[in-house]
């Protein structure tokens, strides 16, 4: 299966990093008591599946990088602090939006 996907691989830059409000997790994982048992089971399964598919911390590594918001800001900070700029240009959806 993975080898099939590797055929598709060009320049991997896919998305990561979910922002999940902790309160949202509590709420979505709640199963109301008034539904039949089968329904509760289905609801728990749906919420667990949604939770299991969220990005993991390791998959969010991109968020550990302190990206400047644009090239102008990067060059301004570079001059101010005497640091080089690392500019990455790429095709496809903006990496910030985690869809590519």
């Amino acid at each position, binding site marked *: 299966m993975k080898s099939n996907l590797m055929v598709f691989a060009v*320049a991997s830059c896919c998305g990561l990093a979910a922002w999940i409000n902790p309160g949202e997790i509590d709420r979505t994982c709640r199963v109301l008591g008034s539904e039949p048992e089968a329904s509760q089971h289905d609801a728990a399964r749906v919420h667990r599946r949604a939770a299991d*598919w969220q990005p993991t911390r390791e998959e969010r590594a991109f968020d550990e990088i302190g990206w400047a918001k644009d090239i102008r800001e990067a060059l301004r900070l570079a001059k101010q602090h005497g640091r080089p700029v690392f500019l990455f240009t790429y095709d496809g959806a903006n990496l*910030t939006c985690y869809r590519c």
Partner: protein
Amino acid sequence: MRTSSFSNAKVIDLLNGYFVPVHISNDDCREGGPAPPEERELRDRIYRAALEAGLDAGTVCAYLVTPEGRPVATAPLNRDVAADPVKLAELMERVIRELGVTKGEPLVRPLPYKGPKPVSPDSLMVHVVTRYLERKGEELVPYDVSASLGTKQAIGWGNLPSESWIELGKDDWLKLLPADDIGTDTAWQPDTKVAAMMLHHFYPPTENTDLAKNRMDELALSAKVESIDDGVVRARVDGHLRMKHHFYHDDDNNFVTTDVVGYLEFDAGKKGIRSLVLVTDGATYGGNTDFLHPFGAAVRSVAPPK
């Protein structure tokens, strides 16, 4: 890059400690794209300066640039350096030595992306995550990439999830609710145009992310009240989706096919949706080969970023 170098601890440490990292999409720089003209000009200027300096350059490329804006090293993706964390770290360390840079704190505080701020306070923000799955016994589970993330071997479309954030205005999310009075046996069809605003994102990571190229062949959703407690309606949602979605930018005859199941909680007075969750059930993507890739997609309502 995200699966390999940008997930590598050493590269991340070098970027934060010695450089000012920045990225820009060439797509955003196209005519009519969201990148401001000044950004396009700077990107083009650095590209031309790299070529004039005799460096390799390209559209998908890392440029290591002095504080004065002069490129001193480059790593085009097709030269086997940018996506190889070991080689990229060596290149970065060489530049650090040559420029005599000392280590410091990140100049921009790393922050997780929380999605766009909603245009209206009445909007419902939803978050979509999609990822390829693999079978482990009876279960379809996310790929275990913990051993390969941050290495050259991690390159591949299947190794990270994709995410999207969507804002549903009040006029939109109201159409997901029943039009008539609500009782414990109420059943209805949520508006498919509003549902499509979310389900258009139900495709696994692919190079093509242009929603306008999707062709929704089948989209059906139905909802039924399961309970009403203290003025809160809880309904189950079931549906089916078949959508053509190109993996690359041209038509490659690939389709998403899936059932959808989820739950919707809203105020009986229809003042707001309290929570929404939808997940795929048995989703596959493919069609131009014999193999259909299993994948999962999930929608969850989220609080808007502050």
